[in-house]
């Protein structure tokens, strides 16, 4: 009985037209970092408003299931299990039937990079608001003064932002911004080039020129777990070319940056991201944010957004 109700809950939701998670139900969603997981311990979380439990076995097999009404039960029935996978050091769960291939992030496999999970932080804002903030250059001098920006170097030069048809992702290139202390490796201010990718409604990756080797790009990514429509867990990931700083130093730099964004995010009204482009005023510097909103609209992403 317990197992069948666990089995039924996602399909009930999928068919419920009022559930905003319906249109992203098949997508892989991040629920945690493998770094932070102890083997054979049950972890409770909420994904797209659905309470779930997951654990990881010794052999790195991930098992996840929807909590039943009588609490979380370990389900031995394979049919009650949710689809899971491990990718880029994180645990991903789909509440439906994943069809698409996982998005590409080839830098993860480059041997001279250090892949680091910085932290998971709960933020009281929708996942799309958190992603949009990650894609924004113009806030650097005001929210990250002394590191990612500094007044009066506030200008955002025009850059290219496009929705790629074939890859089904948003891409922005030639984003130039003056930064006083762009990375833990940086020793002086310089104009940094950024490339941004949004390959998933709740995941974004940025590439920025390495402070030591200008020909290589460091990778910083944010994988956001949509918990409720107005809460999310932000996972910060880095793939760095850096043989100088400790993991702790890299982690704490990233954490300091994100902790500066957090009060901004939690003071945005409304907490969900409006997809009607007239709901909030935009300027040229917001080309990527506007492209992201268009793309979410095109994909009919409703969870964490205010649809047009």
């Amino acid at each position, binding site marked *: 009985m317990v197992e069948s109700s666990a089995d039924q809950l996602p399909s009930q939701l999928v068919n419920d037209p009022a559930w905003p998670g319906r249109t992203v139900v098949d997508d892989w969603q991040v629920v945690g970092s493998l*770094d*932070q997981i102890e083997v054979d311990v049950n972890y409770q979380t909420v994904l797209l408003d659905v309470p779930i439990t997951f654990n990881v076995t010794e052999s790195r097999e991930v098992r996840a299931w929807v909590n039943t009404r009588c609490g979380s039960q370990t389900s031995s029935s394979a049919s009650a299990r949710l689809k899971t996978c491990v990718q880029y050091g994180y645990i991903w769960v789909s509440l439906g039937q994943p069809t698409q291939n996982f998005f590409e992030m080839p830098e993860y496999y480059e041997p001279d990079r250090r892949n680091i*999970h910085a*932290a*998971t*932080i*709960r*933020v*009281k804002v929708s996942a799309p608001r958190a992603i949009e903030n990650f894609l924004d250059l113009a806030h650097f001098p005001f929210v990250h003064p002394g590191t990612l920006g500094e007044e009066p170097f506030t200008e955002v030069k025009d850059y290219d932002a496009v929705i790629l048809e074939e890859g089904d992702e948003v891409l922005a290139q030639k984003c130039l911004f003056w930064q006083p202390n762009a990375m833990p490796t940086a020793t002086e201010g310089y104009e940094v080039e950024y490339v941004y990718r949004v390959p998933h409604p709740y995941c974004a990756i940025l590439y920025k020129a390495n402070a030591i080797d200008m020909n290589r790009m460091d990778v910083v990514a944010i994988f956001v777990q949509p918990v409720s429509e107005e809460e999310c867990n932000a996972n910060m990931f880095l793939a760095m070319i850096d043989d100088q700083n400790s993991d*702790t*130093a890299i*982690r*704490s730099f990233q*954490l*300091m*940056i994100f*902790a*500066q964004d*957090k*009060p901004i995010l*939690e*003071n945005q009204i409304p907490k969900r991201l409006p997809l009607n482009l007239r709901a909030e005023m935009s300027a040229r510097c917001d080309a990527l944010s506007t492209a992201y909103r268009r793309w979410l609209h095109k994909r009919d992403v409703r969870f964490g957004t205010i649809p047009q």
Partner: protein
Amino acid sequence: MIKLYDYELSGNCYKLRLFLNILNVDYDRIPVDFYPGREHKSDWFLQINPLGQLPVLDHDGFVLRDAQAILTYLAAKFDASHKWYPTGDAEILGKINMWLSFADSITATASAARLHDGLFYQLDIEAARTNAHSLFRVLDEHLWFAEEQRQAWICTDKHPTIADIACFPYIMLSEEGGISRMAYPAICRWTDRLREIPNFIAMSGIFESGS
């Protein structure tokens, strides 16, 4: 030399960084990875502070834990004006220590709520928020009547004391624990004044202006 065992996102560490900066005292930061690393519970750190809590100050081998205790030490040691902790004035000293203990209560409630909401700590969140609101109510009323008597600070008229520094961080960070400050306008005016203190510095989560 002063060493501060420090975590950027800790309000209790920040109040020492803030006060050291105000006093213009040089120090070295020794970062402790509180989250996600839980380094404050590691063997090496427990040797320094068996309570496994940040911050800890090491001044040429003299080791002190507890943010409020360290504030009193720093003031007595480095504040030549004796205004931040007037050791010669029994009444003010008594008041300051009363509010330092109040600051500890803010940590136990507002800071706990923030750890719950942001960093997944398991605790009774409703109790933490309710008790924080009760404390904020007391402080708001106190500050409102202080203003009526042209008293700008928690214990004193013109010059702030370490009581102001001690109470400030976790009040400013309270909204991260789901504790709105909208109902405490006198507190908001006091936090404005505090950020005007010469050599004020912010931390991640606290802006240099705004309510």
